[in-house]
Structure formats: C-alpha cells, structure tokens
C-alpha cells in the first residue's frame, strides 16, 4: 500500500492549567488519503480545533508524529517547515477575526505569496491575486476593499483565497461555515467541493454540524474529550453508528421531521466533562446509558469491527 498523504500517529497535545494537565488531544491516530476529506466531528471542548492546529504545528504537539508524504513534519526545522506550510494550509472559523483589519483584500491574499517569495515581480503577484479572487468567486474590483466593508460570506472567500495562494495539497478547515447564514453556508460548501474536484485537494474538515460533515466528507472521525471514539467511511458511519456517543450525536440532530413535533424522543443526558486529568477508562462512560463496571478501567483502544470501521468501545458491534 502506498503511503497516505497525511498520517497522524499517537498525537498528543496537553496544556498545563492550574487545575492540572488538560488532555486536549490524547493519542489520536488518523490517516487522510490524497483527494479525500476527513470530517472531524465533536462538541465544543472535544479537542477538534486543537487537533487541527497541532497537525499544522500552529501548536507544538506534546508527543506523536504527523507524517506528510511519509516525512514527520513535527521534526522539521524552520526552513523545512516554511516549505511544508505552502502545501499545508488552513481556513479559519471566524471570517471576522481571521482577516487583518488593517490590510486590504489584495494584501491579505498576497501574504502567503510574499512570505514564500514566489514572485519577484509585484505586478505578476497581483495578477495571481486577481486569479485567486476569481477562483473563489470574488470580483477583482474588491482588491482594494478592506475586510470590514464586506459581509461574512465574502470574507470567508478571502480566507479561502489566501489558503489557496500557494497551491496547497492539504487544507485544514476549522468550522469554515458555522459563522455563516444557511444560504451563504451552502455557497461556501459548494465552492470548497468544486475546488477539491478541480485541484485534487485533501481536506480535514472540522465541524460540530453533522449534516455539513456528511455532505462534504468521505471519512469521518468522531471525537469525544480529546480522543477519537469512532472512525469510518461516511456512508458506513451514518448507516451503522457503533459507538454510543455517535448514536446519541446522530439522534440529537434536529432533522426536518414534523412528525416529531411535541413528542418525546430520547436525548443524551448530562454534559461534557472537562478533560483535565481524565479518569482511566472510557471518557464517555459517565453519560453512556450502556456503561458498566468494565468501562471505568483500562484504555479504550480503537478496534476494527468491519472493514475500515474503527470503534473505541469494547461492546460495540
């Protein structure tokens, strides 16, 4: 088997807090093949954003490896990393905070080009900026506008154009549509998928919205308190959710179904606990309706229950 484009091995990121060690990302193993989209789903505090940032070394991992085309980028020096960053990019959640308010649209998009010193000639560079803007559906006349003059959808397009500037192969999308209205959200999702088809990009798509992730991903990893509890192909995961948390998450989505109006349906009880100094055993056990003695001890290893379907629950079938 050929080496996958991106392989995450035993990745850990701990933060020191006054209350103890916060296990934001705890021993996560994932692979992403070229041209695929891995959706990472979970509720707030499950470590999905930290995972995305650690993969790109915006946060230094506590331990573990991130292999890009077989090379461990966590061991790269500054110069190697600069080169790698051109192929590994990121799209951020907040289209308001992720653009420097003092720079014009063209300057923001040109930033990665300037840093990578790809263009000697300013005119050529701004021609490229114009092309990028057309690619993401922005009128080139907006070049001299400032981000605060534009609406959320257009700003997010600027963020996408910036990420595309250096012809990346892999992009981490951190909740890129959750701050947008539904109709704009759909426009951006279509754009991201078109770009993938045209340029053969791979995405790691981080979101809390299961319907969005189902739409865009080929594979899905479900995270709970820093750990990956289930990993499978999208169709398989939605058809046969095996982990109790995944099942609860799927049941909680407010689907359009008026027959459920006014009726009681099962909801997951309790709240997400904090991943500070977590107790041994399954982290979902306190909320799990199937939890038994054995769930409170030992490590929950991911095990394969069918081809390509991995679950971190000893009782899942």
């Amino acid at each position, binding site marked *: 088997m050929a080496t996958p484009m991106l392989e995450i091995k035993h990745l850990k990121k701990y933060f020191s807090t006054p209350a103890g060690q916060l296990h934001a990302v705890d021993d996560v193993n994932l692979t992403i093949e070229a041209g695929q989209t891995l959706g990472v789903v979970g509720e707030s505090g499950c470590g999905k954003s930290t995972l995305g940032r650690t993969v790109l070394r915006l946060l230094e991992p506590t331990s573990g490896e991130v292999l890009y085309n077989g090379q461990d980028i966590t061991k790269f020096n500054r110069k190697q990393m600069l080169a790698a*960053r051109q192929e590994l990019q990121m799209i951020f959640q907040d289209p308001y905070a992720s653009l420097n*308010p003092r720079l014009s649209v063209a300057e923001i998009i040109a930033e990665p080009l300037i840093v*990578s010193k790809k263009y000697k000639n300013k005119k050529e560079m701004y021609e490229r900026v114009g092309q990028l803007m057309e690619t993401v559906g922005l009128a080139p006349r907006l070049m001299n506008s*400032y981000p605060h003059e534009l609406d959320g959808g257009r700003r997010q397009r600027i963020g996408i154009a910036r990420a595309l500037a250096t012809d990346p192969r892999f992009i981490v999308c951190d909740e890129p549509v959750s701050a947008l209205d539904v109709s704009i959200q759909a426009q951006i999702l279509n754009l991201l998928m078109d770009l993938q088809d045209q340029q053969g990009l791979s995405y790691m798509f981080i979101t809390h919205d299961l319907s969005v992730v189902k739409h865009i991903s080929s594979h899905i990893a479900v995270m709970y308190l820093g750990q990956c509890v289930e990993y499978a192909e999208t169709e398989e995961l939605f058809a046969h959710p095996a982990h109790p948390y995944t099942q609860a998450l799927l049941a909680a989505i407010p689907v359009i179904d008026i027959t459920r109006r006014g009726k009681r349906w099962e909801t997951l009880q309790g709240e997400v606990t904090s991943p500070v100094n977590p107790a041994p055993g399954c982290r979902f056990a306190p909320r799990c309706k199937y939890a038994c003695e054995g769930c409170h001890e030992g490590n929950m290893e991911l095990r394969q229950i069918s081809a390509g379907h991995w679950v971190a629950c000893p009782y899942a079938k």
Partner: protein
Amino acid sequence: MTEQEEKQTYKKRSQVSAVWHRLKKNKLAMLGLIILCVMIGLAVFADFIADYDTVVIGLDTSQRLLTPSLEHLCGTDQFGRDVFARSIHGGRLSLSLSIISMSIAVAIGAFIGVVAGYYGGRVDDVLMRLMDILLAIPPMLMSISIVAALGQSMVNLLIALAIAYIPVFARVIRSTILSIKGQEFVEAARACGTSNARIILRHIIPNAIGPIIVEATLTMGAAILVISSLSFMGLGIEPPAPEWGTMLYEGREVIRSSPYLVIFPGIAIALSVMSLNLLGDGLRDALDPRLKN
C-alpha cells in the same frame, strides 16, 4: 462605476481618509484639533510674532505691569515683558518638550511592550516587573527625583519625563499586543509561515497603532502639566525662559493687583491639556477600523 475603475489595477487605498472622515463628525474632537493647531501654529511662528531677545526676555522697566491693551494683548509683567509674547514662546517650549519626551517614551515603551507581549513567558515577567517598580512611583515624583539627582536642565527634564512615562506606555502596548496576538489573523499569518518579525511589524503593530496614538495624545496633556508644575516649583525650565509654569510662579506675587499675569498662562495650560484630551478621545473612536463610516 466606470470601466476604468473596474480595471484590475492594484493601488493601496489608505485608511487615513476613512479615519479623518469619522473624526470630522466628532465636534468635540474637532474643537480640540482646531485649538491644538492654533497653538502649534502660534508656537511655530512665535519668532515672527514676537522677538525672543527683546520682547520675551528683554527687560523694559518703563512698561511694567500694564493692563491688557491693543499694544499688549495680555498686558505686561513686573519686568515689563509682554505676557502674550511670553505665553506663545512658552507654548513652544511646553509643546516641543512634551512631544519630544513622549516620542522617546512611546518608542522605548512600545519596544518593551511588544517584546513582552509577543514573546510572553519569562521575558514578559522580567520586563513587566521592572515596569511595575517604575510605575509604583508617580510620574510627578519620579520627574522631581530625576531632575533633582541629575541637576536642573532642559535635557534632564526630557529624560525625566521620558523615563516617567515609559512604563505607562509599555503596559498599555503590552495589553494591546496580547489581545491582538490571540486573534485568528495572527494565527493565519503563522499558518502561512510568516516570521515573527514580520508578524509583529505587519500584523500586530498596525493594529496597535490606534491605542498607541490615543494613549500618546492623552499622556502628552499630562506631560504638559508635569512640565508646568516642575517649572512652577523651580525644577523645570529656568527663568527668564518663558515657561507657563514659571510665568505662573512669577505672577503669583502680584496676583491681587494684576491677575492677568496668571490668568493667561493658566488658560494656555488648560486649553492645551483640554484640546489634547478631546482629540485623544475622538481618535479612540475614529481609529477603530471595525466601526463603519
């Protein structure tokens, strides 16, 4: 929009005009700006309005303590010197001293604040504890002790003021940097592989300029007060140089018979401090790029 404008040319449109547009709407800030401009104008052209050697410091016993008239707009003092001419030249001293000392304080304070805020950790701890020690002493007391230790001269006064205000700026700038550093656009720049120096210069400082300008404007007002107070106590500018504080000190003896000797320099101090405060407040609002129009 015409075809010409639609063309894909790249030319940076400055944000200064937008700031000016917003500032223009703030009537109080404009009042402050106008007063300040008039005072700076008078200070710059002071030599054309009144000759320093003859009118400002030259004695003329025949013209002692004249009440305000067309010839002497603000009257004359007990040495026969024109109060109006002295006030203008005094403004030149106060304004230039405060501008220079604030520029020094901003430059050094900004450097310390940026380094402490951006790098954090131990660097931050050491620098900020040092600043805390300096901050524990009020600027006024600090200036008095520095001038007393170094000796009374204009240069020492400058140094004293600069040192007294460095920690103030370092604090403000550090906290600004901290809030900017946490924003996603800085992370986005790091994701492109931008170096630390470039992140500071291109992404952080331009966003911190607003608070720095505001703080500098407001502190300049405070500095003018410190300069005048020091001179009043005889620790600042030495007579016969026409500093506002010195003028107040000299006028104090004849305050009952000739109150205009203290009224006019007093008004000058009040006006300059007030105009700087009004302008500073106005700039605070106008410089925020997120506020539309």
